[in-house]
């Protein structure tokens, strides 16, 4: 018997680049994933970059200052959705991790006679994409900061030209939960205060959110089942299973173990950064944002501190990716099966007829009559993260809109100038169309106010 390698045909096996993968996915029938990745990771980041570039150079005659602010804020809020493909790739690491070892229980095979490890190794494409996302987010914060500086400077100049205008109020204001909220229109001046127990509700929601987030990180949020000939080989390996459940921490552990396994410095740096980003954005940043929201709710702050808190919360909101992670897990569970089939089974095309016959005659189960397939499914942890996202969305909206209205109330009370309208001006104002103020805290949450 003559045993020799014949692996030269492996020269183009199993490589992913986003551009090629989208085309491959489309051709293989995973059209939904192809469209989603092309939109979230293809079209969207470039759109954001080009719009920001345009806004940087556009004079206010073309894009008004208020429109520029609106656009910059929207781009900042939606920027995180470009991370979807990075999270999907993070999930693909455990999906493609296969370990086949020779059984210890068979005495006629020398110990460790064979073993095979299949590893999905993130490459420069992924890291370059990740670096670009991070730079894009930082740029976004920087541009918003400078935009606000321009507005602030204009207001300061306006105030300078009007000696009767007030200076920045440096004194502490009462805590947000004690604030008396004013209203617009007929009921202006009829101040509203929070009902009893609302602060307790805020605390309760915070505890619920933190619990759901931590539980969702510990409880498995997705499961992976490996099928095909590779799956059968895994089944006969000692201490290996074709069915594995993963939570955020176990996924991170797998990334770190993989870095240790390959021993390459590039993998160690890359996978460690990827793990850090996942833990930071999905667990730590949301918890930090929660702490700041509670500080804003209960704390007594002067204007400077309020502005700082507002800016920090806004920045943290752009960096908290719980909902992006949830969305990525859903997409991965939905499409990973088709992706694994077309990526690897493509190379087993010549065996298709044999596999079909083996499945038809019941020799192999239909799912095993192929080279390799991964089926991902959601687990309870994902539902906990979905619930955490919803609770946090409500809490964030509640406190942020209350804070916004407090700022508006304070600004109105500080600059309450009565406008005298001369009789001859009246005809000029007749055609002036009034617009309704956007809904504020007292409109959304009237039922929590007395």
């Amino acid at each position, binding site marked *: *018997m*003559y*045993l020799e*390698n014949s*692996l*030269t045909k*492996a020269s183009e096996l*199993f*490589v992913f*680049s*986003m551009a090629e*993968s989208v085309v491959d996915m489309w051709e293989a029938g995973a059209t939904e994933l192809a469209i989603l990745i092309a939109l979230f990771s293809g079209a969207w*980041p*470039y759109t954001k*970059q080009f719009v920001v570039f345009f806004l*940087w150079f556009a*004079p*206010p005659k073309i894009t008004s*200052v208020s429109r*520029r602010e609106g656009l910059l804020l929207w781009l900042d809020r939606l920027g995180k959705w470009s991370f979807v493909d990075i999270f999907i790739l993070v999930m693909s690491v455990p999906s493609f991790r296969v370990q086949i070892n020779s059984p210890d229980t*068979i*005495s*006629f095979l020398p110990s460790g006679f*064979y073993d095979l*490890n299949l*590893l999905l*190794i993130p*490459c*420069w*494409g*992924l*890291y*370059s*994409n990740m670096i*670009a996302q991070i*730079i894009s987010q930082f*740029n976004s914060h*920087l*541009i918003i900061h400078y935009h606000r500086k*321009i*507005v602030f400077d204009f207001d300061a*100049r306006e105030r300078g030209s009007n000696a009767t205008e007030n200076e920045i109020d440096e004194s502490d204001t009462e805590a947000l939960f004690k604030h008396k909220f004013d209203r617009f229109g*007929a009921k202006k001046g009829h101040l509203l205060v929070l009902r009893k127990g609302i602060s307790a509700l805020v605390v309760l929601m915070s505890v619920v959110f933190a619990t759901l987030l931590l539980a969702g990180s510990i409880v498995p949020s997705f499961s992976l089942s490996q099928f095909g000939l590779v799956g059968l080989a895994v089944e006969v390996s000692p201490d290996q299973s074709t069915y594995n459940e993963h939570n955020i921490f176990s996924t991170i552990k797998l990334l770190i173990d993989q870095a240790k396994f390959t021993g390459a410095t590039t993998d160690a740096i890359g996978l460690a950064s990827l793990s850090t980003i996942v833990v930071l954005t999905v667990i730590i940043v949301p918890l930090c944002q929660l702490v700041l929201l509670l500080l804003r709710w209960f704390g007594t702050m002067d204007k400077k501190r309020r502005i700082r808190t507002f800016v920090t919360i806004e920045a943290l909101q752009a960096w908290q990716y719980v909902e992006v992670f949830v969305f990525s897990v859903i997409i991965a*569970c*939905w499409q990973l099966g088709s992706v694994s089939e077309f990526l690897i089974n493509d190379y087993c095309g010549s065996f298709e*007829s044999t596999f*079909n016959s083996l499945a038809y*005659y*019941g020799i192999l189960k*239909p*799912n095993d009559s192929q080279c390799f397939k991964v*089926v991902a*499914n*959601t687990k309870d942890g994902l539902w906990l993260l*979905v619930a955490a996202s919803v609770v946090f969305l409500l809490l964030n909206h509640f406190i942020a809109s209350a804070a916004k209205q407090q700022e508006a109330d304070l600004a109105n009370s500080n600059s309450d100038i009565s406008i005298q309208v001369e009789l001859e001006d009246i005809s000029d104002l007749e055609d*002036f169309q*009034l*617009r*309704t*103020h956007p809904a504020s805290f007292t409109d959304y949450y009237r039922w929590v106010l007395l």
Partner: protein
Amino acid sequence: MCLFKIENISFRNVLLLGLELKNTTIEVDALVQILETGLFNFPLEDMNNFDCWLAMIPAPAMEASGVRAADSELTLALRKLKIDMESTRIQIECLSCSSPLFQDLDNSLSSDEAIADLTKLANGAVDYITGLLGGPFLQAQIDRALVDAPKRCPHSPDFVSVDAPRVQYQELQQLNESKPTNWDFIIAIGSVIVSVLLIAAVSTSIVQMVKWKRHKKWLGSLSDREVMEYKAKHLDEQVRALRMNANTTSMFKSSIIPGFMRYFIPISIIANIGFFLSGHISLGASVDIEAQIGGEAIRIKGK
């Protein structure tokens, strides 16, 4: 871009294999229907032609996929096939082995424990294979051979040639319907997300609508002068916005922003587009295979 680096796989193992089976019994129980006329008219010259022996057995009706039709009778079938081995031993002699563990393989296979394990494994494997042979897989091969046999038997009325091509059947379709689908959870989770978004959108719309109606009602209750004063206040806000637009420049030209940053930000945006392009065109990930067979490492690495 997608080149592969194949490392350390120049292994070469030349082995001499031997199989020793002791006291092996084979039991076969078969059903065979033979045409009487075929048997009595069997010419001796075709004794060595296996197709002629098969041609004595009536061929079943076949479906297009090469499986016996459901209403067709079985004419040749294996009812039972049992192979029992008392002892199995594989002998391996390494003539020229680069993999170190292949050298030890013969020693491992010679021990009594290894022989017992191998016999157990071989019997298990044979049981599995004979189980399959008694099933539809072998039956389909037998039925196909029966259909082809008359064309290849010289004394058969249907004879074409001794090497007549075998009947080609349609490919069997994979049983996709039994594969698990995860549509249930997609629908469930999709419903939750759509519900949350819908509730948020409806609540916001209702709040805005109520606010707009109240506002309109309030404006209606004001005197003309009060309306004008209110309008003047709003106009003042708009005038402030217009003044700001007129008295400020683009961010690039703004003197409020340090000169370095005015150039740095657009450069960083362009560099970032470069990063995105590089990220999308370059290799995002590769599947590496690290294997070891017989103590020799094989590494197929995406580059």
